């Protein structure tokens, strides 16, 4: 092991046996030998990791990619099939909060039980007792039986014990959703101070945001291999983009399938049924004298896109058609945030005094040259009207897109152009 490393994972592979229907008793083992067939699945296919003392590392990846398994191997809950793992120092794992809590015993007694599971001696627990109680904010209730606690109080107590163990290495698995908002903030602050005091932290999460806040390094695990290892911001971004691409691919696939299906059977156009270019949340109304036949959100190169960086161009392409010859329509495009906040909207007629003549299928482009929205999820809304505001076809939440804002600390809806003088 190298001098300043505290965790060294060398070429670790882990195989699980996945039983189709596992028999654990004698009868089942003898009678149903067929059932004991299992599939071998390699969850980790060769992970190499070195973590230095005092480092905070985040593992990200989608469900089942092997990130939690890696954490379990580091904490020695499981052992690798191949390869070696070396860990230096006391490990405290926040994988399961409140292990060994006895409902009939008081909060104080449970602190002793729970802390002892982390390998603390009685003297060490006594030294930390005040800190633990103070951190949990449960002073008045500490001598009541734990069964009288609310679930929030329960988690607070459990978290306080785990975080006050003073481990050399702290392993955390998706548990920063403890208690109310103020307690969560407190946990975050505590984690930062623990990190500052030289404790090594390894966090598993599928939310890159959390990891960016605490970690110096992010590791993206996919299919049992390390895909990327580097600065949390970049790794997180790449991860999000890849996830989004994967999702879009899937949507595209489903769309294609749907189309080939709909070719076979002519589907009646009803109010309820949403065309394939719409997302599930979309709602539609209007008298259908003119209809929207497609909507694409693309980047400047014309590539269909879901994730945009603040400052990039965003183009909304809308296709409209009508059965009525020479119908002239107005098109409205607007953007709202996923919490329902209306961000911006305008119509082509009111802005340019132009009406679209629908002699044939018509494609309109709405180009946002500089996307100034801040990080978040947004929806596009479309409306086709007559010049007298008769509603032909209005679709709310046609499609969605994500914005990633490169600057930290910005709050609000969009960036108002500004300057600082000092």
């Amino acid at each position: 092991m190298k001098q300043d490393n505290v965790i060294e994972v060398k070429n670790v592979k882990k195989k699980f046996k996945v039983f189709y229907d596992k028999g654990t008793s004698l009868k089942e083992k003898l009678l149903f030998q067929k059932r004991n067939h299992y599939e071998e699945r390699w969850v980790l296919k060769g992970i190499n990791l070195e973590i230095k003392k005092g480092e905070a590392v985040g593992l990200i990846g989608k469900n089942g990619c092997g990130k939690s398994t890696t954490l379990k191997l580091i904490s020695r809950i499981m052992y690798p099939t191949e390869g070696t793992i070396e860990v230096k120092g006391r490990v405290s794992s926040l994988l399961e909060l409140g292990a060994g809590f006895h409902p009939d015993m008081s909060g104080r007694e449970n602190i002793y039980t729970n802390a002892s599971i982390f390998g603390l001696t009685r003297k060490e627990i006594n030294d930390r007792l005040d800190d633990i109680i103070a951190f949990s904010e449960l002073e008045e209730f500490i001598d009541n039986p734990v069964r009288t606690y609310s679930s929030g109080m329960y988690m607070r107590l459990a978290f306080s014990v785990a975080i006050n163990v003073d481990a050399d290495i702290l392993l955390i698995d998706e548990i920063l959703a403890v208690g109310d908002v103020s307690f969560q903030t407190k946990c975050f602050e505590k984690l930062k101070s623990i990190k500052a005091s030289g404790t090594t932290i390894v966090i598993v999460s599928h939310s890159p945001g959390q990891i960016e806040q605490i970690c110096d390094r992010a590791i993206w695990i996919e299919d049992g291999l390390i895909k990327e290892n580097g600065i949390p911001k970049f790794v997180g971004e790449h991860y999000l983009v890849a996830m989004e691409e994967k999702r879009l691919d899937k949507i595209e696939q489903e769309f294609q399938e749907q189309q080939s299906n709909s070719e076979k059977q002519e589907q009646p156009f009803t109010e309820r049924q949403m065309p394939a270019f719409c997302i599930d949340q979309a709602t539609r109304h209007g008298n259908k004298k003119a209809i929207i036949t497609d909507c694409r959100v693309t980047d400047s190169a014309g590539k269909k896109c879901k994730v945009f960086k603040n400052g990039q161009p965003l183009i909304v392409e809308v296709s409209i058609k009508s059965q009525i010859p020479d119908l002239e329509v107005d098109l409205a495009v607007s953007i709202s945030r996923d919490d329902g906040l209306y961000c911006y909207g305008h119509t082509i007629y009111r802005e340019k005094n132009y009406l679209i003549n629908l002699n044939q299928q018509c494609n309109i482009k709405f180009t946002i040259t500089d996307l100034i929205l801040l990080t978040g999820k947004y929806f596009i809304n479309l409306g086709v009207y007559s010049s007298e505001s008769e509603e032909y076809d209005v679709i709310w939440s046609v499609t969605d897109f994500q914005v990633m804002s490169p600057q930290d600390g910005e709050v609000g809806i969009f960036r108002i152009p500004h300057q600082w003088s000092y």
Partner: protein
Amino acid sequence: MKLLKELYAYREMIISLVRKDLRGRYKGSVLGFLWTFINPLLQLMVYTIVFSVILRAGIDKFYLFLFVALVPWIFFSSAVTGGATSILSQQDMVKKIYFPRQVLPISYVTSSFVNMLLCFLVIFGVLIVTGYGINFVALLYLPIVMIVEYILAMGIGLLSAALTVYFRDLEYILGIVTMAWMYLTPIMYSVDMVPEKFVPIFNLNPMTPIIVVYRDILYYKTIPQISTLLHAFVLGLIVLLLGSIVFSKLQRNFVEEL
């Protein structure tokens, strides 16, 4: 060696699990912890009535003869059957947190052991109150035989705990095995009653010398033979060694098997 050091570091966990087990055992009942004493006392009364009034065994004070052997046996059999489920019953903890897995069977066996010690208070009380008397020199050997039995029970407890994870039927099989084992151990009868040709087989049973020593000390009020004690100690040590080796090997895959 490393394991012993680690177990020492986790001593507080063992202590708190033992405490939790002892206190939790009669939790919610009116008499609470008193049951620890009432239970053996009532048992003793039943034996007294049955064996001195109905079923006369031809052994003087048969209820005492039986009871000084039965209390250690109950400790041993509960260590075997309860030890078997010690890992399974705490599987949520085993799956989520690291600690030396040996802690669970160790604390189970230890809490059964403490329970036996408390029962011995009842035995002493009865021996004094009935005027049967105690040989205090012989009594010095009592802690030794208790420790020997503790070592043996620990070995079997580790063994059954680890094996039961892989083979759940063991839990029920062990119930039958301990019952048969009880009749193959001189608890209801004295070792002299065993036919000559079966004696070597009886001596392989690690519980035989232990029960003999308990009875020497408390019933016959004599100093036990050192050879018998040594015999028990060696057998216990072998079982403990075997148990901990098997446990260490098998515990690596506990999480996947649970």
